[in-house]
């Protein structure tokens, strides 16, 4: 799909200003989370001076009413949230793709069983499960940053979110595979004696790879939204989960302290990142799917 239409793809994308600006936002936010902690001398829980407005020298994003530097809170917090979202998306995409391939290609009982599980997850309010699991299984006794316990918590929370949202990927992959399975070239491949595994890997998977990539990005955005909401509800993977801190800070009645930048800047960064993910997928869909292309 990529190879054949590469020049057309490129020509459409090159003119799309929305796509490039969103990509720039995504890359810069990821970059901020990766290199940000090396740019700031302050730890996220280090006392400086309170209530400095944004663009103060030394504190680009200002400081909150408790005297914590907002920039370091943002970059350290983004790191945790992004890791959780990314792990969730990877887990969901892996499980969803495998199960979707099995359900779509094998059909029959395998399809019914997998679809049953997908419906089960769909009807259970997954938030309740995540809240209960998070409260009872995430240990609060976290010491230093980057410690073993912190990494364990991030992986645990990410995997849990992923395990509760693989059904979106599975259903999407299943419908694509079921449509491809009956196509002529797959029949030819089967007649020439290829095994099921070889047909799936060599004939079907390359055709839906770009589609899976798009679903992955959507899952990343959704996983990130879930992770952030959980943080806000107090299920945090790390001591400096950004929105968990904002919640505590709100409970101390700090909304009336008028330090709007302390929650609006990190929140805005996150919203810009997630919205850009959605919009990039939208632009790519317009490229791959001529019916959505409006000229």
């Amino acid at each position: 799909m990529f190879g054949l239409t590469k020049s057309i793809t490129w020509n459409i994308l090159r003119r799309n200003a929305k796509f490039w600006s969103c990509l720039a936002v995504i890359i810069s936010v990821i970059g901020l989370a990766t290199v940000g902690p090396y740019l700031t001398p302050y730890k996220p829980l280090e006392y400086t001076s309170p209530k400095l407005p944004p663009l103060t020298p030394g504190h680009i994003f200002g400081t909150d009413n408790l005297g914590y530097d907002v920039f370091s809170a943002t970059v350290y917090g983004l790191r945790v949230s992004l890791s959780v979202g990314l792990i969730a998306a990877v887990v969901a995409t892996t499980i969803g793709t495998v199960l979707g391939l099995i359900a779509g290609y094998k059909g029959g009982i395998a399809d019914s069983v997998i679809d049953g599980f997908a419906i089960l997850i769909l009807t259970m309010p997954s938030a309740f499960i995540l809240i209960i699991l998070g409260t009872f299984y995430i240990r609060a006794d976290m010491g230093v940053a980057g410690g073993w316990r912190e990494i364990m918590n991030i992986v645990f929370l990410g995997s849990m979110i992923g395990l509760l949202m693989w059904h979106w990927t599975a259903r999407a992959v299943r419908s694509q595979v079921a449509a491809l399975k009956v196509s002529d070239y797959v029949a030819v491949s089967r007649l020439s004696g290829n095994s099921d595994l070889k047909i799936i890997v060599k004939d079907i998977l390359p055709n839906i790879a770009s589609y899976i990539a798009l679903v992955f990005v959507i899952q990343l955005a959704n996983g990130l939204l879930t992770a952030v909401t959980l943080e806000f509800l107090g299920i945090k993977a790390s001591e400096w989960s950004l929105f968990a801190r904002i919640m505590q800070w709100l409970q101390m009645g700090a909304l009336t302290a008028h330090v709007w930048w302390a929650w609006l800047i990190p929140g805005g960064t996150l919203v810009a990142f997630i919205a850009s993910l959605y919009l990039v997928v939208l632009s790519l869909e317009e490229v791959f799917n001529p019916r959505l292309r409006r000229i």
Partner: protein
Amino acid sequence: MLGYNLPLHEQFILLWKRIFTGDLGWSTYFSAPVSSKILEIVINDLLLIAPAIIVSWFLGNWLGALAARYRALDRVLVPLMYVLTATPYFLFGLLLVYVFGVVYGVFKPVITSTDIHGLFVNPCWETLLNFLRAYTLPFLSMVLVSMGGWASGMRTLMIYELESNYARYMESLGFSARKISSYAFKYAINPQITGLGIQLGTIIVAGLALSSIFNYPGAGIALIYAINYRDVFLIQGIVIVYTIMVIAANFIIDIVYVVVDPRLKVGFTSG
């Protein structure tokens, strides 16, 4: 009383017997029977969530269809829709609380149960005004965020329909754009109806997050307290009742689907 001395399978049967007789145990946090407490919570949540879901669904679908029809509008609406749907509910709630509740004190930043029950106990102009002042912000934050999701979905579905063969055929026959859209809308709305049932789980999360922002006496606050104080019966009760509610809503939507989609109706009556 709890039956912990019984063998496991009998305990399990007892659990189900109690659930079916409406006995969900005793909440240690509220010092009250769980079922009566949950009834209170559910009514509060339905009061906030049900109107918000319905309003945002209609508004979102209308906006999405509009964006699909008019290109100039599309340019403005698409980023707006996606930014709204990318915003976590609590963040949007926070923004509204800060702007309208704290900076300009137009609305109340918290909503208490007296604001809600006052209207029902003593319906007069004053309690209504009080109710609206407290209710508007949680309602608005819920409606606007979930509206973004509906609108973006509807826009894609509508574009698909407007580019399909029957729409092109109608166009070549000389039907007005308005007429074509009204036909396309009928097709495009079907997946959105299914989506309504699927999204209910997500919307409950929104209720959880918003109830902790606005101190709304819904399931969110109750669940957080229940977990922190290890009130097992309340946790169990909330999970059971809300899961049943989602399943029931899905069932109702399936029935509505048959009514709305004539193809299914034909399948049922002739089959």
